[in-house]
């Protein structure tokens, strides 16, 4: 039991959330465009940078649920 505590909890259904970043960045035609721009940054760039942050959020949520 002690070891289980140490290495982490059971896998949960929340892990399906981890697929979201894959869909978001592998679906290239969706984001390969200039508009809409934010602060002059084309969609192609801010969409992917946004998913760096959202990727962290998703993993953080799954971690919270599992521990």
């Amino acid at each position, binding site marked *: 039991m002690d070891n289980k505590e140490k*290495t982490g909890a059971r896998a949960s259904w929340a892990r399906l959330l981890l697929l979201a970043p894959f869909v978001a960045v592998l679906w290239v*035609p969706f984001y390969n465009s200039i508009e809409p721009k934010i602060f002059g940054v084309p969609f192609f760039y801010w969409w992917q940078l946004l998913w*760096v*942050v959202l990727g*962290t959020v*998703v*993993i953080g949520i799954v*971690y919270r649920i599992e521990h």
Partner: protein
Amino acid sequence: MDTVATTVFVLLFVFVTVLGFVASRWKRGDLTQLHEWGLGGRRFGTLITWFLLGGDLYTAYTFIAVPALMFGAGAIGFFAVPYTIMVYPILYVVFPRLWAVAHRHGYVTSSDFVRGRFGNRWLALAVAATGIFATMPYIALQLVGMQVVIGGLGFDTTGLSGDVPLIIAFVILAAFTYSAGLRAPAMIAIVKDVLIYVTVFAAIIVVPIKLGGYGAVFNAVDVNKLLLAPPPPDGSSLGQYAAYATLALGSALALFLYPHSFTAILSSSSGRVIRRNAAILPAYSLVLGFLALLGFMAVALGLSKDPTFAAGFKQYGNNFSIPALFMASFPSWFVGIAFAAIAIGALVPAAIMSIATANIFTRNIYREFINPACTDAQESQVAKLASLVVKVGALLFVFAIDVPYALQLQLLGGIWIIQILPSVLIGAYTRFFNGWALLMGWAAGIGTGTWMAAENQFKVAIYPLHLFGTTVPCFIALSSVAMNIAVAVIVSLPLNRVASDRHKDVTVAGDYA
């Protein structure tokens, strides 16, 4: 030569050298044990692991090459961002399992795991050799990154005398790695990462202000480079869309199979530390994303047309865009800090890579095939010596071979390393595969991957596949590992019936939790 920048650069370098030697006393352990020298005693907590993995994965070469690719080729260079987005869910799910089984059985390398899981020493040898051959050119590329900034400081890096700064840096690196093992790069990584964050944040604030905002930066870039070229409307090809997506996915699947990443993961103190790091490591990806945009800023500043930097671009090509950007935008003392960040950023991964390959050589070749009766102290000593040999090898590599060749070999390395995916990643979940079938799949993957790369004269990582009447430009690593898995499945089916090797598995389900 820029005296101020060079002085700052040298001072920071001396500082990390001292740290490297002090590190042998940090979290003190018995360095005559391989897991102490080569894995830091598996004692690193969340924060140290964050610095170590960050310093290990986001290398000096990355910091030079990604912006250089954006500078030269445009949007396709941004694939580094989706790549580092997808890598962390994989880290979160798979690697705590591998950490757990490695901890339980005292495994130091991925090849150790494969040996225990499949009980096939030849498969384990193939995994070991793949790791060593894929890593060598990677170490050499770190030196290339270092060479570019030394050149940027105003030193002539051509000819025999030009190699002297690099040799000095390498002797230092070799000495502290030998004495302190993985503790040295772990400690230095903290300095490196702080310097990198400071440098990148300064650049992404100061340079756009100079240029008149991010809008101006993007407006200065050729519109054809701002986006991926859309595929032809008749559906005959998936064009750059497929290239971009497969580059990102294939790279993400390969990253943690590299020995230096695996070593850094195993050095953490628990599976929980790995999961936490999967959530906080993307901070580096954000930095990498902004850094990639520095390539566009270099375009907007018109650096390639600036006569001050003409010689640099002539010698180092687009790799000179980042050094030139800093020299054009910052005072000398800050250029010294930025260049030190890159050079120290080369030392950290180079140290971990040489330790990782030394671990593999010692565990999976020396102990397995040459001297099975060796003591733990002998094992650790051999690893220390092997780390020296690896570094001398990488140094000779840089002197003997032109940069384009090092790049081509690194491209091949990426294609090769992914071929251990069925044995290591899938092997962490299922014992369906037969050891011999995995070996045949490995050979098929290495063969097709190398063949496709050769068809491209080893220059391009994308090879067009023709599927159902459509051309799919696909990252070679991904298509060749698909071939690998297909062969491994087809050969496993009959072998599992007539010559099952499942009884050789020394791990049990509970080891992975």
